[in-house]
């Protein structure tokens, strides 16, 4: 056997979101079932405006989940995404509102802050050998406190920065195709997803992401500087969280320093529902996107049906378990 059989050729889309096309379709089925179910239950559900509302509701959690996906594929976990998001928003607010800098500098600050904090988490994990759960739990608390300290425990408003709210609320797509006024926040989500997918499947960084999650010791024994790559991955994840910080700040036209706690579990849930393994080595961005959509559709649908809040929580918990269980069953059947 010297000729390589061409069994693994992938479609362009398949290539973009490479790595286990099968399992993505599984989570996709859950999503479709939910969509059909809610459409039947309420005539108000299947409207363009509501679909856009769902997409918009996905944007923040989706971007956070993408960041979490990168870290989870390396076999780590990131509990700090929620409060880091808030921290980057606060830093953007300080630069734009308190210091009165122009918009682009604010954007760069937000993303750079995220990257810097990701760098610190990565260093704690890689160099100081703190388990990711603890390193990011610590960072979660530190950042939560620092957001309050830096903002003086008050929201920072972006009223002096005209156009800031357009980052998430405007619609570049809507300007071209008025029929689908998809807000920029959603556009950013898809751009981040495409970029992260590309990085995962096509670059060295992505390769080491999977390799580290698969068998870190083996990578190290191959002479690779695993520490540096790991730090790079956490840094990238941090930068992506910075993007989420911009989206939420723009949507609320303010940096709310008390926000963010609890977002990390939601992001991780989206990642796992999307088929990424918490033990590392396997995962896709497309799956994560679908996972985030499942969560958003679920909440939106339950709210539209005016299900009592306490039952919403119960149902959400049950669906998270069911979605992962269905995934398991179908994967076992598939093999």
């Amino acid at each position, binding site marked *: 056997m010297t000729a390589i059989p061409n069994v693994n050729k992938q479609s362009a889309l398949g290539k973009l979101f490479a790595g286990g096309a099968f399992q993505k379709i599984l989570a996709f089925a859950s999503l479709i079932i939910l969509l059909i179910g809610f459409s039947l239950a*309420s005539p*108000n*559900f299947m*409207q363009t*405006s*509501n679909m856009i*509302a769902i997409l*918009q*509701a996905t944007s*923040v959690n989706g971007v956070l989940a993408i960041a979490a996906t990168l870290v989870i594929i390396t076999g780590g976990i990131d509990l700090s995404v929620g409060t880091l998001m808030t921290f980057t928003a606060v830093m953007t607010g300080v630069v734009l509102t308190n210091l009165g800098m122009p918009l682009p500098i604010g954007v760069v600050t937000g993303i750079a802050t995220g990257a810097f904090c990701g760098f610190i988490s990565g260093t704690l994990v890689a160099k100081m050998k703190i388990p990711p759960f603890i390193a990011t739990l610590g960072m979660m608390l530190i950042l939560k406190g620092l957001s*309050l300290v830096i903002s003086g*425990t*008050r*929201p920072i*408003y972006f*009223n002096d920065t005209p156009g800031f709210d357009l980052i998430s*609320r405007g619609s570049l797509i809507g300007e071209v195709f008025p029929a689908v006024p998809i807000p920029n926040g959603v556009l950013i989500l898809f751009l981040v997803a495409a970029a992260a997918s590309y990085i995962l499947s096509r670059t060295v960084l992505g390769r080491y992401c999977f390799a580290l999650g698969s068998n870190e010791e083996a990578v190290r024994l191959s002479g690779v500087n695993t520490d540096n790559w790991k730090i790079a991955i956490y840094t990238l994840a941090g930068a992506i969280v910075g993007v989420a910080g911009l989206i*939420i700040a723009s*949507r*609320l*036209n*303010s940096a*709310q*320093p*008390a*926000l963010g*706690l609890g977002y990390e579990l939601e992001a991780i849930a989206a990642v796992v529902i999307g088929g990424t393994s918490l033990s590392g080595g396997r995962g896709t961005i497309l799956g994560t996107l679908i996972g985030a959509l499942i969560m958003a559709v679920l*909440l*939106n649908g339950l*709210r*539209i*049906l*005016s299900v009592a*809040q*306490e039952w919403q929580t119960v149902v959400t918990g049950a669906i998270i378990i069911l979605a992962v269980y269905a995934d398991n069953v179908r994967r076992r059947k598939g093999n």
Partner: protein
Amino acid sequence: QTRHYIPLISKGFSHQFWQAVKLGSEQAAAEFGVDVTFEGPDNEGQVDRQIDMLAAALSKNPAAIGFAAVDSQASIPMLRQIDEAGVPIIAFDSGVASDLPVTTCTTDNLASAALAADKMAEAIGGAGKVAIISHDQTSVTGIERVDGFVDQVAAKYPNIEIVTIQYGGGDHLISTEITKSILTANPDIKGIFGANEGSAIGVLNGVTESGSDIVIIGYDSGAAQKDAVRSGLMAGAITQNPVGIGYETVKAAVMTINGESVPKVIDTGFYYYDAGNMDDAAIAAVLYD
């Protein structure tokens, strides 16, 4: 002689409302020459955290303790312990089901929410569907603001239907998404009441993003809410006087320490403000950023 130390244990910490209370307490502290600290649990459910905070505060030999109870009963044994140590207790924001506190500096949440209902009815013409978004369904403020609004509607406005009551945890973003869902589910809705700052801003955001023009009645102040009221996006909002609550609490504590008597209840009042009256001196004084 060392300065008197008065710790304030509150129900929350990072919300603007509590920050305003903190501000008022610090103003009074500066005025009366005492030291204050201000802390509270992360969210308004953590009764046990409050008790741990009270215990730590007691260890610091305070001259008096200010306390906003998450639960009106659960902390009574701890308060009794404080009382036995000879430390006077000043309740603020919400009362304790006991006569241990020397006084209670509070506002009537039920009545304030009833006023919000009146204003809502006025704005939508006394008939139609409305919804409530509150911060949580177990805290005293959460419960009373919803109950006050609901009871008032039931009592006085038979043609108003409350289609749904949902809870966003005071989280601006979650409240935004909830608002949009409510608007989708009830295209003919006339108004939404947001029962605290985070909820009100969420409603405002959701309505703006949906391009709807329903009536919004808010609660509390804060820069964004003030702007929205001024610009007319929000019909108006209830505000308590949190700065006043903080101030009165410390003042009552100082008076008690000095052996002066204080009334059993100090009502700091609540106000409805809209674009028309918000620059009045009396109103502007109780609004905070």
